[in-house]
């Protein structure tokens, strides 16, 4: 059954009839990133107004693959479990050359994690769940559909937005404006910021089909199947994914000069799909032809305007680094902006959002563009190397790993950036959180549940945690203490983090520092550093 796009109600905003008090935050765009941003801020007590020009969730074939780290962030935002329950869980990717399987990878070969390597869930469900969640904060999230931002000005210590509604225009002031208005960002265009990078000439047909029978062979296990030069689509590549509601995503590389409109017509599409699924009955849910780009903004922060998600960076989808990258932007910015608004940190902390996420985005672009380049050789020599790598991949392990159909989204390390206190540890400062199961006085839990959201000092094994007032401390595998202690279920936590060591986690789960013998001063200094305070000011 096709997704039912129920429109969300438009309510005439107050600003149409009277001046609104200045808002701390205006978020432009209620895609997955704008919505997640509003929820993150609301959970920290920061109110925001979210403006979207539309009144339905994402239409058509867009994001489906959500990575483990994203799900962990969504867990903190209160939608992770709902996504997991509805989504199709997978972790194996298989690569075929012709009709022969040449290489399979397992993205999460170990257990002891709350979330799987990946789920597939249509972007419209993700947005629906986020909107439902946003409605848990009626006093903090003011979600305005059919409110198009048509102009804005940065006034130094605040911004002014001009908005159009079905009832006419109004203006609104906000201390901070967060542009989550997508790849075509009108905010970015209005500011004249250059957004240039690699555009791939190849076109890709993306079809979502509903089908009762699984195309994933006899075992019918949902996986990621990728073909180089499949028998059903000569000389090109193809990708297959399963989504909930018996919907399958088929992604087919087309010729550079293919006629996009013609290629998206049923007459062209149905035979292409028949060649893959045979005579199994199916329904076409959505068809589109895409060209992909890999680009990022030079700077994500411009005065009082902050770019988050696709407005700041776009990638080709091989590796699922678009939406997943954007959610990590949110995770990085939320606690920093809340600290600045509360006066706990200096506005310079926002600059570190650019430093850290621009780095993450560059890594995503590198991986996505390499995968797309591998799929679409540009010269006869590139084609020759690719063909011979494929030939060798049938029996040479090294060549299998050269095949690149997408290096799937992984969180970046922030090692070496200013907020982290350098140090040696099994999980070095800068690393993203690694989940592990724990058991405590209130039953079973997960490390991610206990550390995400706030700064947290975690002692693993025999290490004494200092007394830091008003600070969240927990122990893992420690004897009773005056802070909550947990045992490491099946030893996963201590195996992953080591023993007799304390880790300081940032609110977004990245390791800020690690200590063998933490003193109260050490911890305070590391926290101050992670809050962007210079040693003198701390």
């Amino acid at each position, binding site marked *: 059954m096709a997704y039912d796009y129920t429109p969300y109600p438009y309510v005439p905003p107050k600003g149409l009839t009277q001046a609104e008090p200045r808002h701390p935050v205006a978020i432009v765009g209620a895609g997955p990133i704008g919505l997640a941003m509003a929820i993150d801020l609301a959970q920290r007590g920061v109110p925001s107004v979210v403006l979207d020009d539309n009144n339905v969730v994402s239409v058509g074939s867009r994001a489906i693959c959500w990575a483990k780290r994203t799900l962990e962030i969504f867990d903190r935002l209160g939608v992770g479990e709902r996504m997991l329950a509805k989504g199709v869980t997978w972790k194996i990717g298989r690569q075929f050359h012709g009709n022969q399987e040449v290489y399979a990878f397992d993205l999460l070969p170990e257990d002891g994690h709350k979330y799987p390597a990946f789920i597939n869930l249509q972007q419209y469900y993700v947005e629906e769940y986020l909107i439902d969640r946003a409605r848990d904060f009626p006093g903090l999230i003011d979600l305005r559909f059919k409110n198009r931002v048509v102009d804005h000005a940065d006034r130094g210590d605040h911004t002014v937005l001009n908005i159009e509604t079905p009832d006419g225009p109004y203006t609104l002031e906000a201390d901070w404006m967060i542009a989550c208005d997508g790849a075509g960002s009108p905010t970015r265009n209005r500011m004249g910021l250059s957004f240039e990078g690699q555009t791939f000439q190849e076109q890709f047909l993306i079809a979502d089909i509903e089908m009762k029978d699984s195309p994933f062979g006899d075992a019918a296990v949902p996986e990621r199947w990728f073909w180089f030069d499949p028998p059903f689509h000569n000389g090109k590549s193809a990708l297959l994914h399963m989504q909930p509601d018996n919907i399958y995503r088929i992604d087919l590389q087309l010729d550079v000069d293919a006629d996009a409109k013609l290629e998206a017509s049923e007459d062209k599409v149905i035979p292409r799909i028949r060649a893959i699924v045979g005579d199994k009955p199916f329904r076409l849910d959505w068809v589109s032809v895409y060209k992909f780009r890999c680009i990022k903004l030079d700077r994500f922060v411009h005065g009082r305007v902050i770019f988050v998600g696709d407005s700041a960076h776009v990638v080709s989808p091989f590796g699922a680094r678009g939406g997943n990258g954007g959610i990590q932007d949110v995770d990085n910015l939320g606690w920093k902006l809340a600290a600045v608004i509360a006066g706990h940190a200096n506005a310079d902390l926002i600059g570190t959002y650019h430093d850290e996420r621009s780095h993450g985005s560059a890594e995503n672009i590198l991986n996505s563009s390499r995968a797309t380049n591998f799929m679409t050789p540009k010269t006869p*020599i590139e084609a020759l190397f690719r063909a011979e790598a494929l030939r060798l991949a049938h029996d040479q*392990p*090294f060549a299998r*790993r*050269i095949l690149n159909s997408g*290096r799937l989204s992984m969180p970046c390390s922030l090692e070496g950036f200013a907020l982290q206190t350098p140090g040696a540890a099994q999980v070095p400062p800068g690393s993203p959180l690694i989940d592990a199961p724990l058991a405590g006085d209130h039953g079973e839990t997960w490390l991610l549940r206990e550390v995400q959201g706030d700064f947290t000092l975690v002692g693993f094994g025999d290490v004494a945690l200092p007394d830091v007032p008003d600070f969240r401390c927990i122990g893992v595998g420690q004897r009773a203490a005056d802070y909550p202690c947990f045992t490491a279920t099946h030893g996963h936590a201590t195996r992953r983090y080591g023993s007799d060591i304390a880790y300081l986690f940032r609110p977004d789960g990245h390791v800020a520092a690690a200590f063998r013998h933490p003193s109260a001063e050490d911890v305070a200094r590391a926290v101050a550093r992670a809050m962007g305070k210079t040693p003198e000011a701390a």
Partner: protein
Amino acid sequence: MTIYPDRLSPRQDDVYNALMDAHEGLSEAESHALNARLILLMANQIGDLGVLRDLLTTARGYSHD
């Protein structure tokens, strides 16, 4: 001699892209010439005729159908 299963990962993408970058902007003939020079340089670097013969036999062993 056996061929090493994999000495490139986890940096296989860096290696592969370094190769592609080396060919950037060359004509096809220039690229073939570059490949020939590269093989000669690598042969010298390996410096062992036995190893080289094994590699040549392996490379030659794939059918072109």
